[in-house]
């Protein structure tokens, strides 16, 4: 009898391991919502009402959907960057800092470059954000390939450095003297990303991000550098033996990765805030790690996972108001997703 059970579970687990990973991602989400439901029931509220309120807020109206999408936008861009870096086994957890670096650089260009036509000014603003992010990513990449310094530590520590630098700038040189709080003046109108859906904040950056996701999908699977990024990540030794300059590939990957995170910051500044604000990213750079992993580092799937996390962010308040379920329940769901994604990744690696 016992042996039968063991055999049965063994069969089950081997099927489980053969499950396509998109299905396992869906199951992870489902399970997270189920566990969240347990908490809601424990509070004494109705999960259906709570989740209904959440969904309605996130997708139920044009404005709600627009708000979800403008939150998805930085998550998507940073998530794409993280996906690229993780493909090359460069564990970039500095997206948060890169977002801030991108935001600062974009803000400076958007504030001080006068007399440009709108298109040129927006382009330069976004480009500045990408350069700012890339600059921040460059040093951890260089230290990694030259000195073997662990990139998790350097990228993480740089986050704090940049966030403090932004705080300094907003208390000093960039501060809007007219305002009582630590924000910069508004960017010049010519540096604002145009609104796509009227009477909402749905800006052009959202479409840009989705377009970039498709482009990066093509880049990863169809170009020489994309091939080399995947090869270097999957089997560094074999890549070297095949004549791939692995160090060079890592540097380029990280530059692209951190430029995308920088772009996320630039888009947030130029499309949503229209100024530099001290805490303009509510941890997008960290959440983007979960976004990338839930999307299994596949650019097209990262679109969907970024929308999911954005919907949770956006719908949380509505859920609290409509169903009297406190916001932290959403953090539980997020947390469960992250833990389960991590488990499924290690399970896959372990079984290979």
């Amino acid at each position, binding site marked *: 009898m016992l042996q039968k059970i063991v055999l049965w579970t063994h069969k089950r687990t081997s099927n489980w391991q053969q499950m396509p990973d998109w299905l396992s991602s869906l199951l992870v989400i489902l399970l997270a919502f189920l566990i969240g439901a347990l908490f809601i029931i424990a509070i004494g509220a109705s999960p259906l009402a709570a989740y209904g309120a959440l969904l309605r807020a996130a997708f139920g109206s044009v404005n709600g959907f627009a708000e979800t999408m403008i939150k998805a936008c930085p998550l998507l861009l940073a998530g794409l960057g993280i996906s690229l870096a993780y493909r090359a086994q460069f564990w970039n957890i500095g997206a948060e800092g890169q977002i801030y670096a991108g935001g600062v650089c974009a803000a400076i260009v958007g504030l001080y470059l006068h007399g440009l036509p709108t298109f040129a000014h927006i382009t330069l603003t976004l480009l500045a954000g990408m350069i700012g992010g890339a600059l921040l990513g460059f040093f951890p990449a260089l230290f990694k390939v030259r000195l073997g310094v662990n990139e998790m530590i350097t990228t993480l520590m740089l986050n704090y450095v940049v966030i403090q630098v932004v705080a300094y700038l907003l208390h000093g040189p960039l501060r809007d003297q007219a305002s009582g709080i630590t924000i910069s003046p508004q960017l010049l109108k010519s540096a604002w990303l145009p609104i796509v859906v009227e009477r909402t904040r749905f800006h052009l950056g959202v479409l840009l991000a989705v377009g970039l996701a498709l482009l990066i999908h093509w880049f990863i699977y*169809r170009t020489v550098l994309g091939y080399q990024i995947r090869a270097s990540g999957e*089997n560094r030794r074999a890549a*070297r*033996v*095949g*004549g*791939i*300059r692995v160090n060079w590939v890592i540097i380029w990957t990280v530059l692209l990765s951190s430029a995308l995170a920088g772009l996320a910051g630039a888009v947030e500044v130029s499309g949503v805030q229209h100024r530099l604000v001290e805490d303009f990213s509510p941890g997008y750079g960290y959440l983007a790690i979960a976004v990338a992993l839930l999307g299994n580092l596949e650019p097209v799937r990262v679109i969907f996972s970024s929308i999911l996390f954005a919907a949770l962010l956006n719908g949380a308040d509505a859920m609290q108001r409509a169903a009297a379920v406190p916001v932290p329940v959403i953090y539980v769901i997020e947390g469960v997703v992250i833990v389960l994604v991590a488990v499924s990744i290690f399970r896959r690696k372990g079984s290979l």
Partner: protein
Amino acid sequence: MMSDKSPSVIVMRGITKRFGSVVANDNVFFTLQKGEIHGLLGENGAGKTTLMNILYGLHQPDSGEILINGVHSHIKSPHDAIARGIGMVHQHFMQVPTFTVIDNVILGLQPFYRPALDRRHARQRLLEIAHLYGLSIDPDAYIWQLSVGDRQRVEIIKALYRNVRILILDEPTSVLTPQESEDLFHTLRRLVENGLSVVFITHNLEEALAITDRITVLRNGKAMATLPSVHATKEELASLMVGRQVLFDIPTLDLPDVSVNEVLSVEKLSVKGDRGSLAVRTVSFSVHQGEIVGIAGVDGNGQSELIQVLAGLRAPYEGRFFIKGREMTNASPREILQAGVGYIPENLEDALIPSFSLLENAVLDTHYTPPFSRNGVLDFRNIVRHARALIQSHDVRVPDEMAKAAVLSGGNKQKFIVARALARNPQLLIAAHPTRGIDIGAEEYIRNLLLQKRKEGMAILLVSTKLDEIMSLSDRILVMERGRIMGEMLREEATIERIGMLMAGSEA
């Protein structure tokens, strides 16, 4: 030879073990008699180690039963196996390098609540065992100071110290010099004289014939036959192993014209190993067009480091090397490949990306050049054509080119790797252990391919630990020992004895 009346200490009946869809053992019947050395013979992947891991309690069989001294037994763990008198020496030793021999031997034997180790008593017993079975060892040496042969003896002593009566050895000679192997055989004979029983796992026919009393041949997880060694012949065993007749004829080679182009020239090359000590010491040699130069030696005598330098994967410490007259001493792997070198690395894993399809793997070393890419974009039409050509012309057994490299068998992986390297039309092929761990069919195919390429004028540097491979393929043979080239000889001058002496470090 044992008579059939000797009692069976182990009977394994109808053992079946599956790993996923792979049947590692298929209804295997195996008996071990008291006082015999029983050879377990088969190719890599035939299921030898799995069967013994089951006996040692590392795996549980899916079905079948095990009798120890006639008693039904469930062996739940290695701990359980040792308690029942069964010990096993794996290919990878389970030792703590920073402990002494004696501490390794008694490791885990003393209950944790007894604070002081009783080393005096342990030393006495250890020396008694060593003396009884002819195992010379210094009990106070640290493991890291010991040679591989010494470490293997420690592993055997560990088992004997735990009073095992049945000793399983998994490919024990693969890491030993011929002389060390002789010592081991001597010890094994002493063991069986004292009433122990030994299972000797090997894929080497000659060894099996030399040391064992009986041989069980496994093929694809099935026990093909059990026969007394004195009646067995090499040819019979080989055909049981692979399922058909294997020719042991050495092809006759016409002598290469070494006056023509020197393709690879190595001058006084020294290389540091991973531990910072010199792994290759002032080595000089050359390889000419149309010539196979074989480097023989026990694994770990500097061959790996030498090959890695020649492939651009490791920086040399001193000395230089030239490919077609151009100095390539500090060139990158890509520069060396582009100088006309084909490289078959010693580990299959270093040549393939497991999660990539064969399609993508087919261009691992060429994807950045036309016709496989233009302006940084891959051209999949040409890549598909190339991958299919590799698969078809070299009979790589796969469903199609979209199959992931990970699903291929070792032999098919290696055929694919060799095919890919040769498709570049290199002038120099560096082949490190091209037939290690693969089935005899693929081995034969690759050897013939090397001979054919040699005929077409390719220069080939072959590194192998298989003496028969070195002797049947090479025009010239170099023997490496502790980083030096101990001797060089033409094929006609080579004998197993002479190479064996050089491999062991004595001048011939």
